[in-house]
């Protein structure tokens, strides 16, 4: 039978930052999640939030940690997040990537450094992040990848970025990339398609 709800949930107890920091490592994931939420807008907690993020197994706790970090976005936070790329598993890497998408302005500097990393996985992640940043500097970096990068898969990821953010001015770099990998059918196809679609806007 229908019953009218009688009372709101209890309001949260007053927040104690020290308890919050401690609860980041509590055995109960709900407590950890609440701690991550309660520590919003606490710049002093940034290091602890990132530390916990690197080892946190529960997806919903990680989501709360990341939302907190996104809310405090800055180039420093972007740097900290990028440093997590090689600390966790694929799920964490992807979540960090998405968090960086939510702070495009603040990420560009960090990604500029990362796209020059000797580690191909880092370069790929940098390209994936840059692909979603609607900024001419990101487009420029992606075009540079097309000219310099030896790994065809990283180049293909850069092409995706240009499909979103580029235009006919990228045509030369795209053609140069295709010329470097004549035997990779996918490279030929995507470059041709993109050039055609850029042509269609003029």
């Amino acid at each position, binding site marked *: 039978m229908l019953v009218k709800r009688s009372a709101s949930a209890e309001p949260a107890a007053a927040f104690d930052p020290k308890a919050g920091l401690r609860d980041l490592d509590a055995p109960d*994931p709900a407590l950890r999640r609440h701690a991550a939420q309660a520590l919003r807008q606490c710049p002093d907690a940034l290091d602890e939030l990132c530390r916990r993020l690197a080892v946190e197994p529960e997806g919903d706790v990680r*989501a709360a940690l990341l939302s907190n970090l996104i809310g405090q976005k800055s180039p420093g936070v972007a740097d900290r997040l990028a440093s997590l790329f090689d600390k966790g598993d694929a799920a964490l890497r992807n979540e960090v990537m998405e968090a960086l998408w939510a702070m495009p302005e603040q990420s560009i500097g960090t990604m500029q450094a990362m796209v020059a990393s000797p580690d191909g996985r880092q370069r790929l992640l940098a390209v994936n992040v840059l692909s979603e940043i609607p900024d001419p500097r990101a487009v420029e970096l992606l075009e540079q990848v097309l000219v310099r990068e030896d790994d065809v898969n990283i180049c293909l990821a850069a092409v995706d970025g240009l499909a979103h953010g580029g235009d006919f001015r990228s045509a030369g770099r795209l053609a140069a990339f295709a010329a470097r990998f004549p035997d990779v059918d996918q490279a030929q196809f995507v470059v041709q398609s993109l050039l055609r679609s850029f042509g269609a806007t003029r």
Partner: protein
Amino acid sequence: MTGAERAAALALYDPTADEYNRFCEFFYQKTGISFNEKKGYFVKRRLQERSAARSAASFRDYFSMLRFDLNGVELQQLVNLLTVNETYFLREDYQFDALVASILPEIAEGRARGSVIRIWSMPCSTGEEPYSIAIHILEKWRQSDEFAIEICGSDIDSVVLAKAREGRYAERSLQRVAPPLRRKYFRTAGVDFQICDELRDSIDFSMINIVDRIAMARMRAVDVVFCRNLLIYFDDVSRREAVELLYEAMSPGGFVCLGHSESMSRISSLFRPRKFGGTLVYQKPHRP
């Protein structure tokens, strides 16, 4: 221009079947919104109107403009035009069928007789949705007597909330309500229909903004959320925030029903998709 002249002018922009399909795929890729067949006429009409408004040479020309409009301004126009909402009783009631046939039985299993099952309509607008849920449960769920069913409705707009609390509706809102149900749950009030007092008094209405953390904290242990056709209006950051707050408000194992053309897949991986019959809903994981 007369109606006939306008129709003739717009016919110029009528998309071919292939063009229309490509448009739908593009629109879905961009917005996560898809259209069922019934909406085809309406969507095509809007496309024709926008093509004309942009002085395109053809639909194909308009589609090109749309694809390469880097600021997304035209796309946003289109989204606004295509998602104008009409609310009425028993709208998209296939979800209410899934509620009664599958979701509530699953929740009821392992829950003691007499315990609370909490269902939340958010946004509830002028109340048709929570009242529809109530009617559907009373009519169709055999176990409805065994539990204390709390139905709550929330919205950010105080004007629509006032209307919801009043429970008075024009005939138009009841277009899908069959006469026996009208007699049972409504009484006439002039040309309008008034929800019967018993039903009206058992729904809890509250003003809550879905991205307001403090307001949302007032709802806890919710078993089923109907959050239909709200998230599509938000940007990525707000959508993510809203979904996390919904997650917080829900019991483990609770269910979320989005609008027919909506999906969590581009918003958040906090929920798992479940399919009941042809209906896709999302479930908060049980804690192991």
